[in-house]
């Protein structure tokens, strides 16, 4: 393994670093096994070790200079053209000064992009009772609602992943850029996200969501299923961060639906606050509504 090869792998992913080191360890063990007790072999092993030690030192220095200096700067997935990687790093404001606040008609606007439900979706919506929405028990908001909640969002780009941290509900989404596949039987509130850079944008695909009785939005009693697939495209437009989001869920929707929105840079030096949803306060308003079934 050459220095350059090692560095390239290490720059690509964290897993790449581990992989490179494991190959290194394997070759080292092999050299010791070859020694077999003869003086000539021992000499060869010793000189090999010295060469490896020097190589490691050089690699370490290069990693510190190039690798360490880059992280967590945007470098992109392995093999991505750096010129195609948009700079998404920072705290982004998705509040009321930037875009209309979410509600029953926002961002899903009747007559424009409001979803057409199939029979199953319509039946679920018809029996839905606001009193049982899981947000009143601090279950966090999920895609596609989370992205439109009027809070701050912090984005960090690493070589092998992009982290989206949401002030709303203290949520973190990891978008893997290293080509890994979703685990077969793992379903979560935020799903499993993979991404890639393309044409100056970050493309994210998320699947493996749990069934969520209000998983489509926070306001209209529309559920989402484990067949939900959310696609996001993020790009920069001047100082703005823009995104187009598309939801597919054949369990409940007749066809995919999309919205486009934007964020502006958050206040200088702003750090996300702890949301720490209070279960007591989350459920407090329930006492003020008249349940559908009583």
């Amino acid at each position, binding site marked *: 393994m050459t220095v350059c090869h090692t560095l390239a792998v290490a720059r690509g992913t964290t897993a790449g670093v581990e992989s490179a080191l494991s190959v290194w360890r394997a070759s080292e063990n092999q050299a010791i096994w070859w020694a077999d007790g003869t003086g000539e072999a021992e000499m060869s092993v010793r000189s090999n070790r010295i060469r490896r030690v020097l190589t490691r030192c050089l690699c370490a220095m290069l990693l510190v200079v190039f690798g360490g200096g880059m992280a967590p700067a945007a470098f992109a997935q392995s093999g991505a053209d750096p010129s195609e990687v948009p700079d998404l790093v920072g705290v982004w404001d998705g509040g009321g000064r930037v875009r209309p606040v*979410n509600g029953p008609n926002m961002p899903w606007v009747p007559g424009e992009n409001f979803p057409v439900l199939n029979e199953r979706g319509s039946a679920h919506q018809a029996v839905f009772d606001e009193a049982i929405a899981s947000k009143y028990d601090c279950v966090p908001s999920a895609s596609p609602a989370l992205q439109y909640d009027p809070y701050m969002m912090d984005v960090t780009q690493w070589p092998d992943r992009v982290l989206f941290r949401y002030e709303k509900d203290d949520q973190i989404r990891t978008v893997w850029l290293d080509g890994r596949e979703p685990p077969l039987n793992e379903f979560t509130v935020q799903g499993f996200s993979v991404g890639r850079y393309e044409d100056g944008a970050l493309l994210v695909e998320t699947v493996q969501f749990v069934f969520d009785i209000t998983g489509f939005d926070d306001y209209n009693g529309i559920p989402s299923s484990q067949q939900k697939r959310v696609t996001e495209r993020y790009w920069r437009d001047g100082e703005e961060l823009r995104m187009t989001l598309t939801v597919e869920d054949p369990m409940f929707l007749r066809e995919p639906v999309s919205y486009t929105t934007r964020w502006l840079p958050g206040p200088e030096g702003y750090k996300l606050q702890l*949301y720490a949803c209070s279960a007591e*306060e989350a459920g407090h308003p329930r*006492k*003020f*509504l008249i349940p559908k079934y009583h």
Partner: protein
Amino acid sequence: MKVLLWMVAAVVAVAVLVTSVPAIAHHASGPFYDNEKRVEAIGTVTKFVFRNPHSFLYVDAPNAEGTMIAWEIEMGTAVSMSRRGWTAETIEAGDQIKVVGQPSRAPGTFGMCCAELTKPDGTPIRP
């Protein structure tokens, strides 16, 4: 004269913005509160709970018959309010306050939302 009118309008607009409780972004208000009605309470703050996803203000205020009512006024998330300068100490127990907002729907409850908060004499409560 026109300049004076514009100045008055600007002052009123700022006052409304400053004293209005931040909008509820966690859930729709419609199922919980009647947006076609307005109620008013003038009384004493007993507690201010500054939390997420909603803050709540508790006010004891007499109704028209003189019976003391314990109002629970739903406010915005602490995270959003703090960006506008609010803290857990902006309103304290014992403060005199006037609250005007939408009443809760469930019979026998005294919730309120989307309220405007001022001191009883109408001066704004500033964060």
